[in-house]
């Protein structure tokens, strides 16, 4: 399994903050994004190709090609605006 988290605007617009995904041959973050964006409208609009998505894997900033494995915690969020 994979834990996926959403924050801020993504959390609000996708209507969920956290879910478990079965590992379906996800080699990298890219595969997870592709899988999720196939869910339809909001998912494609927010997580689809060309969207500004920041990524964390196991609480470290990551990229689309970052490899993932079962048990990982993956998070998607808009560009951060702290400080």
């Amino acid at each position, binding site marked *: 399994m994979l834990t996926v988290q959403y*924050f801020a605007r993504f959390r609000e617009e996708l209507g969920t903050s956290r879910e478990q995904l079965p590992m379906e041959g996800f080699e990298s973050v890219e595969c997870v994004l592709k899988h999720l964006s196939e869910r339809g409208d909001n998912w494609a609009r927010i997580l689809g190709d060309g969207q500004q998505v920041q990524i964390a894997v196991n609480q470290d900033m990551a990229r689309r090609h970052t490899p993932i494995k079962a048990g990982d915690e993956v998070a998607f969020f808009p*560009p951060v605006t702290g400080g």
Partner: protein
Amino acid sequence: MFEQIRVQTDDFDLSHEVKALREGHKDIGAVVSFVGTVRDVNDHADVAVLELEHYPGMTEKALENIRQKAHQRWPLQNSLIIHRVGEMRPCDQIVLVAVASRHREAAFEGAHFIMDFLKTHAPFWKKETLPDGTTRWVDARLSDDEAKKKWLKASENA
């Protein structure tokens, strides 16, 4: 025990924190502090409430990582990052970064570096509520990304 990374809803006292930061380090000659505050106007609209969301766990890890990088890069005696989360109002303090060193150059650069990376690498998000009750997420500033890049460039040239 002085905690160098704190994510909290409570406000902080600058004097108190700088004093604690210096405690036990007699060779400190310079302390640079940055306090970020809630402006009442952002992009030409009044702000009534600012809400800070974060990613618990990752936030602390990201901040500690940035702090360590600053210590690797400059000779710093001590440093501190406090970031508030939850609801804040105009003029409230949001963030404190304080850096202590023997000399001022390292203290200024270290504090500036930490703030620039905090802005781009720490998982915080701001949501504004306007006086009419409408809300909006604050957009990331392109200039924050550029501010971070100047340190990468400086590092390559070093």
